[in-house]
């Protein structure tokens, strides 16, 4: 089932490998740089009166907004007009064997 569906969904990702990779990297990075605490759990350098830890998380918010905006803009490029949306999720990635189960 799994192989069958991956062949079926090759479409947009294969057509735009670079864009797809950039999208995947951006989304993963957006999660990782918040998830991996040792990266920013420090008091210094202080920014104004804010310890670095607190400054980092506050400034991260608008950054993640901008990154996701870039992602959805890139996703539009992935899909020819009203077609399927691509993205790190992989368009129709899997949905494995849907049709045969319906039998």
């Amino acid at each position, binding site marked *: *089932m*799994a192989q069958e*569906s991956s062949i*079926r*969904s090759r479409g947009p990702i294969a057509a735009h490998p670079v864009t797809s990779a950039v999208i995947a990297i951006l*989304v993963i990075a*957006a*999660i990782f740089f*918040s*998830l*991996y*605490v*040792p990266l920013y*759990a*420090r*008091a210094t350098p202080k920014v*104004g*009166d*804010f*310890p670095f*830890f*607190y400054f980092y*998380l*506050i400034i*991260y*918010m*608008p950054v*993640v*907004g*901008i*990154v*996701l*905006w870039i*992602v*959805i803009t890139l*996703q539009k490029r992935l899909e020819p007009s*009203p*077609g*399927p*949306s691509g*993205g*790190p*999720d*992989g*368009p*129709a*990635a*899997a*949905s*494995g*064997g*849907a*049709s045969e*189960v*319906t039998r």
Partner: protein
Amino acid sequence: MSNVNYVTFTIVVVLFLLVTLTGFAAARWRRADDMMHLNEWGLGGRSFGTFVAWFLLGGDLYTAYTFIAVPAAVFGAGAVTGFFAVSYTIMVFPIALIFLPRLWSIARTHNYITPADFVRGRYGSRGLSLATAFTGILALMPYIALQLVGIQAVLTVMGVGTSSTNTYVKDLPLFIAFGVLAIYTYVSGLRAPALTAFVKDILVYVMVIVAVFYIPTRIGGWGHIFAAGQAHMKAISPVTHKPNGVFIPTTGNSQLAFSTLALGSALALMVYPHSVTGVLSTKRRDIIKRNMALLPIYSVMLAFVALLGYMALADKATVASVKKAGGNAQLAVPYLFQHMFPSWFTGVAFSAIVIGALVPAAIMAIASANLFTRNIFKEFFKPDASPRLETQVSRWASLVVKLGALAFAVYLPRTFSINLQLLGGIWILQVFPSIVFGLFTRWFHRWALLAGWLAGMVFGTIAAYKVATPTTSHWAGSVDIEFGHTVYIGLTAIVLNIAIAVILTLIFKAARVPEGADETLPQQYTADPTDAPAPVPATVGRQ
């Protein structure tokens, strides 16, 4: 009501009346031909654009409990159990961007109204769908109750209704507020919270911006605020003989607790039924995507709301008031406002919190009502229910849900509601595999998912029950120690859940256990139907 500040009180009452009027007027907003349809009452006609959806989702996800409990946790214990919420609301958007558009498309194509509708259609399993609906209702009830706890915190500080020993008199303002909310939700459905969310968000923004710029000037600047926070976290608690909390998580265990709490909560948020309700009420697929990029603006505000906890620590009068009230950290922010602001602005800030409770409470009640109607009433009792009957049942169910939540808030000890909310987060995570994995693959076997769900629920509940501190014997927190590491229980439970689902899927497939029918097609997960769905709701599963 001897120590009530009447300026504050009047402002709160006036703004509450404004919201009530808005709630009733919402019934006429974007009015559809036939309101007696669950797509209308329960999903606002599936018609909201980017702008309305931003307010609705913002009003939905950032609850009064957030405004009270997150700073309260920062006030009490600092970064790990409090400020993790900021990391959590960062991660929730990239994670949601991966799967929410697919959920929107499949729900739009098949006219699904609840997440359990999707599970029913995808796996052809009434059991798994019932488990999803049951978990959703179970997790939402204490969540709604906690909105009331938020209102209670404000009312207590305002001095309203605290003098009487009679429960009904004491909580009369709460009954009135909730009664009014119940009636306009009954009448207007999802349109009511969507429209009142505008009032809420504007008030909340004004409150936060003023608090962030004004309060530091009163109490010696940000440097002093952070110093007060750091000093309090470092101080040794006389009860536990350990530091009060963590100012910056520098040890491995505190970092792991911080990130697993953030990740677990981020995964849970978007499978909560009220989030799904908000998401499905939008008009087009790209509106969901855009909002994932726009909602972080809301989260910036959350970060500053969290820091109100340190501001409260930096203000001696607030610390003294909280101590006098029995050390209830939930009162920290209301007291801070009362001590810092002139009484009229305290009224504005308090209204923001009260109204901030009403909006999500309405959406949660609607989401629970829809789950009950679609996945319990229609599925098991009246498969041929007409859209009209469905809507009527949902309306009444929303009243019952609110009444239940009210009973929760009034009769059960407050700590009990908070524990249940903590459990709610762990529970709702257990439906994540069925919903989110189901959006990408049909590999998992329906019964394996059900078994995994059960294991996760049981493990999570027991593990949370066993958490103890020197002051509380049970339900003392949401992290425990697994293999020597401090980890969020919800995350441990979902790992167990997934492991069992994988193993049993392999076994069931080998044994050729029937997989159930799947009514969805791969291309439907990325579809963007432009026209409104047919007026007849899909009969989920077989006809």
